[in-house]
């Protein structure tokens, strides 16, 4: 799993986040009233996952681990 919910409700994106992660991520973001997202250890982000992040606008913890996303998005 490269998307998981931490104990305090923070959602983590880790490692290589592929298109399959988009749906579980969306599900978690929908379930949480004030979602927090930690994507610092995500090494590579798929567009579909990024789209969910852009649409849901969760509170983000730290810069994205994917250097391109961190630099340009």
């Amino acid at each position, binding site marked *: 799993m490269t998307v998981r919910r931490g104990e305090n409700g923070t959602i983590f994106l880790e490692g290589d986040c592929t*298109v399959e992660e*988009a*749906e579980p*991520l*969306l599900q978690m*973001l*929908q379930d949480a009233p*004030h979602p927090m997202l930690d994507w610092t250890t995500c090494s590579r*982000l*798929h*567009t*579909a996952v*990024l*789209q*969910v992040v*852009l*649409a*849901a*606008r969760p509170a983000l913890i730290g810069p994205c681990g994917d250097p*391109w*996303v961190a630099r*340009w*998005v």
Partner: protein
Amino acid sequence: MNALHEQFVIEARELIEQATDDLIAMERDGCAPERIDRAFRAFHTLKGSAGVVALPAMTLALHAAEDLLAAIHAGRLPASAAAVDQALACLDKVSAWVDDFEASASLPSNAGDDARLIAERLRALLSAPTSEGTAPAVGGAAPAGALPEWAQALIRAEGVTIAREKLPHRPCAVCYEPQAGCFFDGDDPIQLMRQIPGVLAVRIEERASWPPLADLDPFACNLRLLAICGADGATISNIFRLVPDQVRIVEIPSDAWPRVPAVEAADGDVSALVRAVIAEQRRVLQIASAPEDFVGRVGAAARTAANALRHGERTDLAAGVERAQTTALAQGSTAPLVSALAAILERPDVAIDSVDAPAVGLAAAPADESERRVSRSLRVDEAKIDALINLAGELIVRKNGFAHLARRAEDVGTDTDFARALRREHDAVERLAGELHAAILQLRMVPVGQVFRSFPRLVRDMALRLDKKVELVMRGEATESDKTIVDRLFEPLLHLVRNALDHGIESSEQRRAAGKPETAVFTMRATRTGDRFVLEVIDDGRGIDPATVRRRARERDLMAPDELAALSDEQVLDVIFSAGFSTAAEVSDISGRGVGMDVVRATAAQLGGHVSVSSQVGVGTTVRLDLPLNIALSRIMVVEAGQQVFGIALDAVMETVRLTPDRISQIKSNAGFVLRNRIVPICSLAEAMNLPASPTAGLETRLLVVTEVDGRIVALEVDAIRERLEVVLKPMQGLLSNARGYSGTTLLGDGEVLLVLNLREVLP
């Protein structure tokens, strides 16, 4: 190929034809709005169809052409020869692609590059600096007006941040709108963006505002990815080569760039900047968010928008925004503020994209045009019509058998009433069957205009290349002939047009010197006389000099010198139809290889017609193709030879003669006789068909059918001549299709199969 693809191919070809017609007419008669509108719609529909069958490259090229026509329609561009040329070039490419698509259900691998090249050329015309019209309301940024709106917005939003950096020579702006379903195709749009070298700025935004999170489809891409980068267009195109339809690349001219930071740009791009700021605020307000953020968001957006307007010295509008803010807060909804901001964006004194507005209006027109002209014609596969013709043909043959029966009943003579009734019924059936057959043949009749249609374009292009002025006159386009004939007319006509334009019609100087109008008149005329279909190609050029023809024929050894000398001046002109004849001093890329006129004669002969030429030196030349009106029904003569029955096309039969043995002379191993001062060789049909000669051969009066094939006269010796028939000739099929010597088969009234000879192959 599935039904959808087939439909696309048929429709695309029709649309290409129509668009070509309209473009040529546009150039010739000037820009009547209906013409441009029609051409535009043809391109528009074509683009839509290409989208349906998923041909992105085609869509891309057509889209650019459509934009060009929209600009012409809006009066922003003149319908110059260059514009028409490029639009026609685009159609040519699309037409070739349609052929490729029909053959292999896909486009060639370089289609994307070609498409981009076409699109670039078309867009170059669009962005060519024209002194009037393109200057937008915002002063100082005129060339930027040529940039698409998205690129302008991108530069406005990102330009300031990167203007301070050292800019590359020619930066490019990229706009990538992935298809909604792209994730299912395994695409990762960011992955493509990552590959862009020398990125200066990136913007990722939603195309449609986000739905509530619960309704979000995580697998439908709703993003627009924008970038400014230092790479050149070709490199970027290569990265996006698989999605040419979804990406737009423009080079940013240096003067489109905000050279100085925003503060100093105050006297330049004020409204552009203000507009961008306001648009951004509106966008922020439209994003769904938590209710507890509401007050803060409305406050921040209104404050930013108002400040921007004050900065642009529009204090009046700023006050309006603040009023809308109060209303929005009172109502607990962002709507009043959003609409207030939208209203400001729509004000002409704030708007900057007035240049693009007419294009948008025009593009929308075809969509809401509800009363589309419904074509009153029905599209039917040619094979189905042919099946019907075959059936009707067989009905006629069967009906002939009926006549046979009626005669027998009369001969037996036991019940004359019955015989008479049978005869009456037969007559009725005969009439109906005849009418049915004629009506079905009528289905195959198509107007010759179909083949004429390609020529305005051809004549135009050829005249341009030869630097001659030619007016094409077409008459009798509505004259109808059998589809087989009309379909095959293109090639001979093409050769005639080439010859006329290249050799027949003089250059403007020569025409002036000869006291002729500078513009030559080239006429294509179709008429119907009786059961013949006559096509004439007339030019008012220099005419054909019989002396030149004689000289050329001698030089090329086309004919024996004494034979040549015997021909009159009118007859000698026919030599131009011989293979290998050319009067051109040198071979040009248009004509002069000496094959053309030969093809004209061969095609006319294959269709059961003939070609003739008349010419007057200094006045012009007329080539006349005399063709049958339809070829589905052939007239044949039935003959017997070697105890078999054969059919001979009546067209080839000159006469029949009975000869006593004393009139036949033996020349070496060949027999011959003299017919009106000509020696006619005799050929035994039985022998030619490898059949045993009839036992009486050589003893008594001989029966000869004198035939003419390709100008050669040969007498065929037969045992008996039977009736003449009108038959439906069926081509040889299956195993027999390779059998030489036959042009087809037909059924006789008694059910016997009749083989119809192809004399060209039978005769030695």
